[in-house]
């Protein structure tokens, strides 16, 4: 409060201290802000440049939304007024920039924008420096409006780079003319593609060449500041060259320049050169040029003393890798891995695994590489990596025998990593028979080898090994008794771990009771996995993304849901990757989901086998209707589950959302689900709000968005995981990112499972993501409309529906609905004013589909006739269905 009083003082000292106090100590949300704003307003109006400067600095330092509300209109005026002092202009420009970053919606665009662009021509270089920052940020968001800045920036830059080092007086920094301004101008130019005007383009190329030439000149000073400033401009110029990616000549020159830096004695320059080259490697023009530096980069990996530089070298090797040098790069990375810093090992492991897979000409090389990887850095080999190697081995017949032989040999080592045991166990369990012919790897030897590792392994690995053993029973009947003995031993049958115990008991029974036929069917070889994006790549992407580095727990959660496509435990039959517990059979998840129950009698026998040992499935709850209405049931432990495929009957609510984006989607006694969504072109985002209406916590709260197989290729949905507990009375939010790839019919289903009290709740509702959400309205004249209408006269393009009105026939409501549907409502197109006509374009990633529609009401009959014409039959059909439900 005292500080606020100081602000209104006329004394400079008091004012200054007041401002300092506020800038340092008051954070954006403080209550005092309103009082402070008043004092600032007075100072801004004071016309005293020092006071104005103080006030502007204060606004920029605090930069809160309240500040923006109060001053965002005022500052542009100060900025472009003719009589404002240069120093005030500078402060005003940056102050406005800060407000624009905090609250872009509050800064009004207007006449001032064009005048701001002309500040690039200002005589005062300080003003240009400050204005360039502002223009860059504004241009990023409104590229069209600031297009003229390109030619101005180019001419300014050209004047700077060609000036003699003394021309710019105090703006020359250690013989480099205006380095800060040059960097900012080059950055501004990176907001735009290469200039179209050949004259401007020529001038820019000249500038860039001059900058590259200067790098070759002998330094004008020995000071590090001189070279730093010069190279700062150079690196920014190279960024621009890479951004434009259109001048092969410049790209190659840039690459050669960076090549020189790779061996520079300054660590900083080596670091930056490696970093910059990474982006150059992705340009087709310079990829080959980058590759010529491979030896230097490998050398950097071996000799650099700073881990951050080595990390850059790894990145660059990864970026420059292609089929021609993959073997060399992978070998070098593996070498480096032995001595690499712990902090970057996991990343290197992922990179090696990806490169090995991507550029594998020969899959034996791939298998060797991954096994090496496990040998060298087993602890850093995440599940994805060894899941992936198994996927590949299973999908490729030609490598299975080799893989079995190699893992068998690798397992001979006295101490081997647990991950190797897992891979070994899995592969021998599947393909051990391929090497059993060799007496050195006979079934018994294989079994003994694996079993010798058994006791040193963790529970999940032991569980996996038990599955391998039962697979051996099928593959090698001759060692059945040996295996049964092992399963029967007390350490298995009476193991303290439930999972191990259950497996031992079940497998033992299975091997004694079932006939060889049944065994052969149950323990069949795994079917090939469907091809999909490498899970490792997905992980690396995620690892590189912001924010994921700290939250390991979250990564893990995402991992498991990623692996299986849903949060449910995967069964052997539907899992596209081995499930986290590496369950070969899926027995522990659900005993009845076997791929093909041999026959009905055998089937029941199978159930018998399990039912007397493991009552895994709890009885189903009697009725599904009262699941939600029975808090009394809460105490009793009942699993109530609706059949997964019945979608909750909420069709009516679903149709409500066809013409609107926000509202309540579902509500019962326990839970309310609200939606808010936004769509633009083929993209959208939906916010789902889950409200707990009870006073009790929901536990294990897992909402899953499910796309049917038909829907999956057409609609990309990405969901963020939500917190598994929802407190009583609380609300959690989930974001779904939506991308429409092609037109689609069905709606995705939102499945929600949670535990309320003692009951397990499971419900599904259709998520109202419908094709019409990707509509962009199109205005057109009557003539245009009918011309297009005639063009779409093919009977397949038209769909018509005549239906009875479900709601009162009100013209205004109908209009609102058509607009809500997404198409433009065209007035005065139809000769009959009672009819409604609309037009729009459906945006999907692959195509755009023009749609025309006409709705003819018949008041007497209380009927409508709806006609849709689009270029695609399925689209006409779907839109007609959706819209017919609305009236």
């Amino acid at each position, binding site marked *: 409060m005292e500080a606020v009083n100081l602000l209104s003082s006329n004394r400079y000292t008091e004012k200054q201290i007041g401002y300092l106090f506020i800038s340092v100590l008051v*954070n954006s949300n403080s209550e005092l802000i309103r009082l402070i704003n008043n004092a600032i307003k007075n100072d801004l109006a004071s016309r005293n440049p020092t006071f104005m400067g103080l006030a502007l600095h204060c606004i920029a330092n605090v930069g809160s939304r309240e500040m923006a509300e109060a001053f965002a209109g005022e500052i542009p005026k100060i900025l472009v007024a003719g009589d404002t002092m240069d120093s005030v202009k500078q402060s005003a420009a*940056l102050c406005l920039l800060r407000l624009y970053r905090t609250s872009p919606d509050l800064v009004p665009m207007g006449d001032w924008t064009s005048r701001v662009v002309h500040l690039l021509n200002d005589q005062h270089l300080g003003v240009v420096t400050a204005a360039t920052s502002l223009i860059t940020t504004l241009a990023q968001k409104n590229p069209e409006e600031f297009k003229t800045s390109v030619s101005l920036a180019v001419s300014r830059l050209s004047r700077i780079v060609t000036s003699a080092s003394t021309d710019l007086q105090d703006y020359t920094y250690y013989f480099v003319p205006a380095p800060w301004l040059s960097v900012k101008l080059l950055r501004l130019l990176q907001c735009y593609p290469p200039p179209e005007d050949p004259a401007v383009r020529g001038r820019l190329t000249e500038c860039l060449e001059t900058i590259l030439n200067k790098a070759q000149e002998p330094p004008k000073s020995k000071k590090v500041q001189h070279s730093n400033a010069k190279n*700062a401009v150079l690196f920014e110029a190279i960024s621009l060259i890479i951004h434009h990616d259109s001048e092969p000549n410049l790209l190659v020159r840039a690459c050669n320049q960076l090549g020189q830096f790779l061996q520079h004695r300054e660590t900083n320059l080596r*670091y930056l050169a490696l970093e910059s080259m990474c982006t150059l490697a992705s340009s087709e023009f310079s990829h080959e040029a980058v590759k010529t530096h491979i030896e230097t980069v490998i050398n950097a990996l071996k000799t650099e003393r700073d881990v951050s530089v080595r990390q850059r070298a790894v990145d660059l090797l990864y970026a420059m890798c292609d089929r021609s040098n993959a073997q060399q790069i992978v070998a070098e990375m593996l070498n480096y891995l032995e001595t690499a810093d712990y902090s970057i090992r996991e990343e290197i492991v992922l990179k090696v695994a990806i490169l090995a897979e991507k550029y594998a000409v020969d899959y034996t090389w791939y298998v060797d590489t991954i096994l090496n990887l496990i040998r060298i850095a087993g602890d850093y080999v995440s599940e994805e990596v060894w899941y992936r190697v198994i996927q590949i081995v299973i999908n490729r017949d030609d490598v299975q025998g080799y893989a079995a032989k190699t893992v068998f040999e690798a397992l001979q080592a006295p101490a081997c990593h647990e991950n190797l045991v897992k891979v070994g166990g899995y592969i021998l369990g599947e393909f051990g028979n391929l090497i059993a012919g060799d007496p050195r790897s006979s079934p018994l030897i294989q079994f003994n080898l694996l079993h010798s590792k058994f006791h040193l392994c963790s529970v999940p690995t032991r569980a996996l090994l038990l599955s391998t053993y039962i697979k051996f029973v099928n593959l090698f009947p001759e060692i059945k008794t040996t295996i049964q003995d092992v399963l029967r031993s007390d350490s298995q049958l009476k193991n303290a771990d439930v999972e191990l115990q259950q497996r031992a008991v079940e497998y033992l029974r299975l091997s004694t009771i079932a006939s060889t036929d049944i065994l052969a069917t149950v323990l069949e070889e795994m079917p090939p996995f469907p091809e999909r994006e490498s899970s490792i790549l997905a992980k690396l992407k995620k690892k590189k993304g912001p924010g994921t580095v700290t939250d390991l727990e979250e990564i893990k959660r995402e991992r498991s849901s990623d692996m299986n496509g849903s949060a449910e435990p995967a069964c052997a039959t539907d899992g596209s990757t081995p499930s986290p517990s590496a369950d070969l059979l899926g027995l522990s998840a659900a005993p009845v989901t076997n791929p093909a129950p041999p026959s009905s009698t055998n089937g029941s026998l199978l159930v018998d086998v399990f039912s007397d040992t493991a009552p895994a499935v709890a009885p189903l709850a009697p009725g599904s209707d009262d699941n939600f209405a029975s808090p009394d049931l809460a105490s009793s432990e009942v699993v109530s589950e609706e059949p997964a495929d019945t979608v909750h009957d909420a069709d009516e609510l679903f149709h409500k959302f066809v013409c609107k984006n926000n509202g309540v989607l579902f509500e019962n006694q326990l839970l309310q689900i609200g939606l*808010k969504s936004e769509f633009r072109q083929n993209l959208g985002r939906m916010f789902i709000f889950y409200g707990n209406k009870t*006073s009790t916590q929901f536990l294990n709260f897992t909402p899953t968005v499910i796309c049917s197989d038909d829907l999956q290729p057409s609609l990309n949905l990405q969901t963020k995981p939500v917190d598994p507990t929802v407190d009583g009375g609380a609300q959690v939010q989930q974001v779904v990112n939506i991308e429409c790839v092609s037109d689609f019919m069905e709606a995705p289903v939102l499945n929600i499972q949670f535990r309320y009290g003692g009951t397990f709740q499971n419900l599904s509702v259709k998520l109202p993501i419908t094709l019409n959400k990707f509509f962009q309205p199109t205005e057109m004249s009557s003539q245009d409309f009918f011309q297009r209408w005639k063009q779409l006269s093919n009977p397949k393009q038209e769909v018509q529906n005549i239906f009875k009105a479900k709601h009162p026939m009100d013209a205004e409501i109908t209009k609102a609905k058509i607009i809500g549907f997404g198409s433009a409502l065209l007035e005065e197109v139809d000769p009959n004013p009672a009819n409604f006509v609309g037009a729009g374009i459906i945006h999907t990633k692959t195509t755009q589909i023009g749609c025309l529609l006409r709705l003819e009401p018949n008041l007497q009959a209380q009927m409508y006739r709806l006609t849709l014409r689009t270029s695609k039959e399925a689209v006409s059909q779907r839109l007609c269905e959706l819209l017919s439900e609305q009236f």
Partner: protein
Amino acid sequence: MSVLLPIWFFSERDLFETQRLRLMLFFFPLLSIQQMQFMLLFSRQGKLRLQKWYVPLSDKEKKKITRELVQTVLARKPKMCSFLEWRDLKIVYKRYASLYFCCAIEDQDNELITLEIIHRYVELLDKYFGSVCELDIIFNFEKAYFILDEFLLGGEVQETSKKNVLKAIEQADLLQESQNEDWGGLSEDIL
């Protein structure tokens, strides 16, 4: 069981919220704002001497960041490079005598020019205080802040000319001194 539901939908606040969401949704992914995030000055003993934040953060976050960064930077050896990746930011730092100057910039930012921002700031302090030392900054921290504000505003370089920056500070000082004389008379009255 009756629980009052909060009003989630269609309130006025909600409309505002939607607008904000829309802005976030459609502008945020396209945006790569480049700017300096913050600047810290700390001693070899890890004592913070000056801090300037250009992005809104809570005090708790600021403390956490400072603690982590001071540790990371102090642990580095002299010959190592001046840049390091930290969280999703890049840290540019340089040591002058007993003080570390440390700036956080974003991924696409220019590291070398940031290094020279630090150097120019040190030059400004040096010129103003006449061979600056850590004590100058401790006892005249307000001057250090004023100089920084003249040079950098909102995380962007405002004025690179040494002369212009110092001229602005000297003018302010003059104003201060002439008023201090008035103060003399005034305080006598009070006494």
